[in-house]
């Protein structure tokens, strides 16, 4: 980008051309106050807070006031931030804003990380002169996540600009007028948009605050934090969880989650599942200590066969029991079968795989899911296909979404796709020489919206920005994709001329003429045919000479369900799935079997009946963070660390490996799963008389640090070799000082634990990363990528992030996190016959089952978070009105489905394919069948056994 030279307060700087002056000043790390400007949303010049003086030339002494966010930098421009007139103007602006601001700071959750506080200090407004009465507003109840305190508003309009323009929400408006503008809903109620949590960070003051945090509130400076990765879907958003110990051993240490900027993934925003899902780690259902099944026979209970009641067990005994089993397995007296997990780190999975041996390691997913994941992996290896980063998605100029309900399965990607809707406008703005940061000007440009086509199995949140939406079954969607391939220019088909205005033709025309087309698909609909069709389309587009600016690859985003779905895929073959495990254990075998299930709930992954069959007759040892359905059958339960309590690596849906770090020391006897396994192995080695006696597990018995596990993996598995470059970089130590997890203002060091014991204990040491569980260490902005406490002098709010970036909206300094997997480049062979999609044999009488995903409810961990649990609602089925009529079912009726104890509420919707039954995913165990007979849908009868007992 071309550079221009500007002079600010008699110093010359070189800055990028085309940006606005505020952006340039912040990029130069200058302190210039602002409110309405946001790096992701551009300038509107509403607040007038960023005024500076611009001089005509160097010899001009008078100059004039300009609003820096609305002024492009001019080559040779001379500006002054420190001129007295500019300073007093800014102080005057803030004084007016503060006229009605309540005297609330001590009882405001924003206090201490408030942009308004920072800007007030920066503008040197210290004394209130206005003695009149303050305007007040009544608040609204905005649901369980967001608190509303309208008195504090300074009318910067950031909330509605974010909520309506950026996130596409419709239920938050600017109401009223004049001095009495009210930002709220038409009536009380939960904010509907799935990204409403970002209002907490977008609002520069305390109008919108985090209600879940407020329940166990502490100030920002009292939170300890570390870089983490969100565990609630496969996108891999970076987060900065904040934790604080209460000094009395309360395990609920995690207090909140905020966004941690990563340009290529989450940028400035998180979805609500990621922001509020953290509460699962504080759940009363956490396993805090090793538990053992009670051997006392149950006298009377409602438990199913094989269910157990647990009692605590000293950790050394638990390790000894596990060591016994490993010992037996080693001596060939027992089969030890490991079940890995898509929601835990690569390190944990690798440790389990090492322990049980590659042949006995199974992915904790169904055969169908594992096949899909391997398919995704194979597709992403194709040189003609690339996984787009979020900014790339935002700049796509034609989008086709194939079946995947990304608003609910990969929400942050849906938010990015929403930005793509304005790409045509942005292109037009470029052509007209309007800078893109001129938000209002770009928005009102008259240009057709970006062609976005959605093929879905139900109405989605993105339907509003779609040019065309079609509701169809997965097979039909796959067929549509293949039809589009046929309609692309250059495709050798005869059908091209006829039916020229079919949907496929429209899509083909839009995609073919786009420079940066984007296809979005995923594993959600459980259809390999759909994934193959998406890949075929992407490859056809990549071969299309018009597109992709000569890169000869097409952007294809494939959403995977869990945080480490793609990571686990690297560790097991396509055959190592739970059904295989089932047939393995079902075989006659003289040896007793032990299942080692690590952070996997079999009843979440498989239909009830299959999960029960796997558990039948086998001993189960489970390592998990939350007590779940599978835990009821476990002989031994070991408490695993939740993501913010541990360090490890996740591989996101794009194949980016990212390391997350321990935010806080977990309570009780909780530790990472790999540590339990390594402890047991070490105990085993001690019994055998030294590690050399157990050569297969010798390395594992000596693992002390998670980095050793990563190193072993990087050395052993070629595509995971980038793990060795993933860090943490121990060279970031300055004079031996690690990165401090706590802020330099962290309070209560000598009082927090004093109730229990007045003598202070040293803080725990982190064996795995160059970070301290204390305030002692590096605190400087942008010094280390490990720093997650976003703070700079004068900038207490999250707006300080620009001090951590190369420039606002740019890459995180000094380096962005994550390394792409080093997968071999391999052409993905599409096996598509002329007949199109290999059809699932459909009986005309049967209803095809479709999984329907929900932001709150379909996440295994997040649905158990306290606040999210209040909005999850009941399991439901979706029916097309015609089908509902045929089945004689009305909306709101309760029905039962085969193989499940759950009752489902019937919802009838016309935006659904016919001859299908959509079933809420995650509300019950998955359905065993891909199609069900209408007779199987039985109305729910209360207490069918009667009341005789």
């Amino acid at each position: 980008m071309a550079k221009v030279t500007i002079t600010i307060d008699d110093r010359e700087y070189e800055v990028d051309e085309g940006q606005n002056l505020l952006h340039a000043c912040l990029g130069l790390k200058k302190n210039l106050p602002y409110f309405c400007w946001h790096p992701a949303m551009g300038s509107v010049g509403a607040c007038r807070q960023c005024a500076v003086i611009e001089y005509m030339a160097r010899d001009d002494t008078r100059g004039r006031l300009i609003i820096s966010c609305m002024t492009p930098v001019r080559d040779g421009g001379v500006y002054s931030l420190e001129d007295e007139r500019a300073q007093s103007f800014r102080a005057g602006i803030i004084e007016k804003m503060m006229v009605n601001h309540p005297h609330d700071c001590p009882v405001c959750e924003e206090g201490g990380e408030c942009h308004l506080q920072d800007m007030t200090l920066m503008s040197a407004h210290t004394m209130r002169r206005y003695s009149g009465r303050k305007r007040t507003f009544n608040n609204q109840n905005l649901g369980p996540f967001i608190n509303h305190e309208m008195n504090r508003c300074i009318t910067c309009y950031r909330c509605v600009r974010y909520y309506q323009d950026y996130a596409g929400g419709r239920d938050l408006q600017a109401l009223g007028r004049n001095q009495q503008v009210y930002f709220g809903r038409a009536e009380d109620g939960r904010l509907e948009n799935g990204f409403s949590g970002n209002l907490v960070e977008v609002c520069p003051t305390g109008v919108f605050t985090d209600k879940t945090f407020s329940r166990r509130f502490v100030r920002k400076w009292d939170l300890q934090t570390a870089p983490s990765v969100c565990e609630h879907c496969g996108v891999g958003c970076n987060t900065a969880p904040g934790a604080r110990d209460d000094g009395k051993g309360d395990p609920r240490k995690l207090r909140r989650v905020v966004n941690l900027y990563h340009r290529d993934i989450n940028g400035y925003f998180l979805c609500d599942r990621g922001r509020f899902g953290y509460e699962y780690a504080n759940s009363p259902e956490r396993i805090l200590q090793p538990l053992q099944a009670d051997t006392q026979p149950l006298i009377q209970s409602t438990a199913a066969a094989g269910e157990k009641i647990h009692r605590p067990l000293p950790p050394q005994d638990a390790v000894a029991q596990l060591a016994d089993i490993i010992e037996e397995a080693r001596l060939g007296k027992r089969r030890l079968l490991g079940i890995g997990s898509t929601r835990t780190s690569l390190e944990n999975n690798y440790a389990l795989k090492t322990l049980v041996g590659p042949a006995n390691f199974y992915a904790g997913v169904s055969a169908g899911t594992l096949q899909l994941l391997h398919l995704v992996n194979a597709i992403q290896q194709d040189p003609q296909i690339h996984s787009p980063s979020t900014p790339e998605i935002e700049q796509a100029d034609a989008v086709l979404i194939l079946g995947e309900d990304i608003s609910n399965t990969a929400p942050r990607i849906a938010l990015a796709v929403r930005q793509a809707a304005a790409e045509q406008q942005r292109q037009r703005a470029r052509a007209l020489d309007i800078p893109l940061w001129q938000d209002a000007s770009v928005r009102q440009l008259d240009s057709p919206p970006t062609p976005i086509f959605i093929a879905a199995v139900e109405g989605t949140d993105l339907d509003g920005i779609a040019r065309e939406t079609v509701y169809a079954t997965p097979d039909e969607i796959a067929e549509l994709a293949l039809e589009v391939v046929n309609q692309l220019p250059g495709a050798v088909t005869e059908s091209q001329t006829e039916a020229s205005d079919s949907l496929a033709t429209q899509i083909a025309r839009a995609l073919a003429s786009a420079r940066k087309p984007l296809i979005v698909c995923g594993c959600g609909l459980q259809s390999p045919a759909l994934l193959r069709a998406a890949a075929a389309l992407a490859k056809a587009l990549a071969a299309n000479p018009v597109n992709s600016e000569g890169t000869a690859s097409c952007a294809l985003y494939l959403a995977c369900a869990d945080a480490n779905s793609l990571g686990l895929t690297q560790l097991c073959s396509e055959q190592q799935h739970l059904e295989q495990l089932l047939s393995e254990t079902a075989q006659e075998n003289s040896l007793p079997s032990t299942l080692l299930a690590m952070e996997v709930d079999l009843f979440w992954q498989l239909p009830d009946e299959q999960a029960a069959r796997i558990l039948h007759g086998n001993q189960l040892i489970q390592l998990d963070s939350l007590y779940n359905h599978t835990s009821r059958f476990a002989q031994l339960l070991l408490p695993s660390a939740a993501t913010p309590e541990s360090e490890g690596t996740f591989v996101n849906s794009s194949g980016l490996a990212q390391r997350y770090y321990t935010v806080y020391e977990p309570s009780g006897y909780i530790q990472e799963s790999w540590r339990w396994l390594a402890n047991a192995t070490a105990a085993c080695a001690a019994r055998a008389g030294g590690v050399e006696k157990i050569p297969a597990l010798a390395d594992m018995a000596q693992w002390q640090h998670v980095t050793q596990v990563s190193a072993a993996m990087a050395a052993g598995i070629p595509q995971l070799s980038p793990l060795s470059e993933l860090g943490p970089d121990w060279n970031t130590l300055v004079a031996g000082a690690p990165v401090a997890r706590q802020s330099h203002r962290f309070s209560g060091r000598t009082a927090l634990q004093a109730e229990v014991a007045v003598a202070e204990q040293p803080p725990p040491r982190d064996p795995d990363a160059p970070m301290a569980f204390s305030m002692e260490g590096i605190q400087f902005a942008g010094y280390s990528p490990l720093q997650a406490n976003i703070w700079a002098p004068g900038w207490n709010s999250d707006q300080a992030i620009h001090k951590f970036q190369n420039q606002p909206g740019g890459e995180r300094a000094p380096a962005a996190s994550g390394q792409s997997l080093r997968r071999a480049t391999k052409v993905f062979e599409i096996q598509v016959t002329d007949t199109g999609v290999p059809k699932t044999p459909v009986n005309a009488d049967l209803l095809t089952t479709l999984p329907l995903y929900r932001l709150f409810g379909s996440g295994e961990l997040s649905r158990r978070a306290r606040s999210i649990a209040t909005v999850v609602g009941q399991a439901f089925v979706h029916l097309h009105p015609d089908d509902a009529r045929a089945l004689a079912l009305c909306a709101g009726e309760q029905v039962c489905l085969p193989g499940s104890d759950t009752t489902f509420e019937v919802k009838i919707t016309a935006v659904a394919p016919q001859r299908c039954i959509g079933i809420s995913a995650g509300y019950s165990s998955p359905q065993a069948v891909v199609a069900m007979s209408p007779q199987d849908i039985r109305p729910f009868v209360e207490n069918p056994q009667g009341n005789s007992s």
Partner: protein
Amino acid sequence: MISSLLRSLWLVFRHLFRRNVTVQYPDEQPYLPPRYRGRIVLTRDPDGDERCVACNLCAVACPPDCISLQKTEDEDGRWRPEFFRINFSRCIMCGLCEDACPTYAIQLTPDFEMSEYDRQNMVYEKEDLLINGPGKYHEYSFYRVAGKAIAGKGKGQGLNEKKPVDLHDLNL
């Protein structure tokens, strides 16, 4: 040299005839002004409610970090400390907490007699700190001036506040 020696001897000798400044403590108590920086208390507002709103400013101002508390919000909408702890074995009586307190809740008193045989007894909890009066500031009640609504004081009923804006009013 000699002269300075003699002068010192003379000064010491003169003091034989001066009044004794030593006080027979503890039989005799010295006068300490009300703003003396001694034992810390938590006060109540004129209505008898706890003044502390658990804003955490005292804790962050405290140089030896000996104050710790946890905010909780009660049914009446008030913020209160769930616990409030001062480790007096670390306290240096600097008074920065009092300076920082936006509600006059935390105040230092002219009492310094806090010796204990067991250091653990120097840890004071909220029950130990809370007194039944307003301390040095008799009139101040934070919630009267704050914009936050609490039970008994709705929006617009605070000091210097207009009635809440009615968005359905045609005369906005």
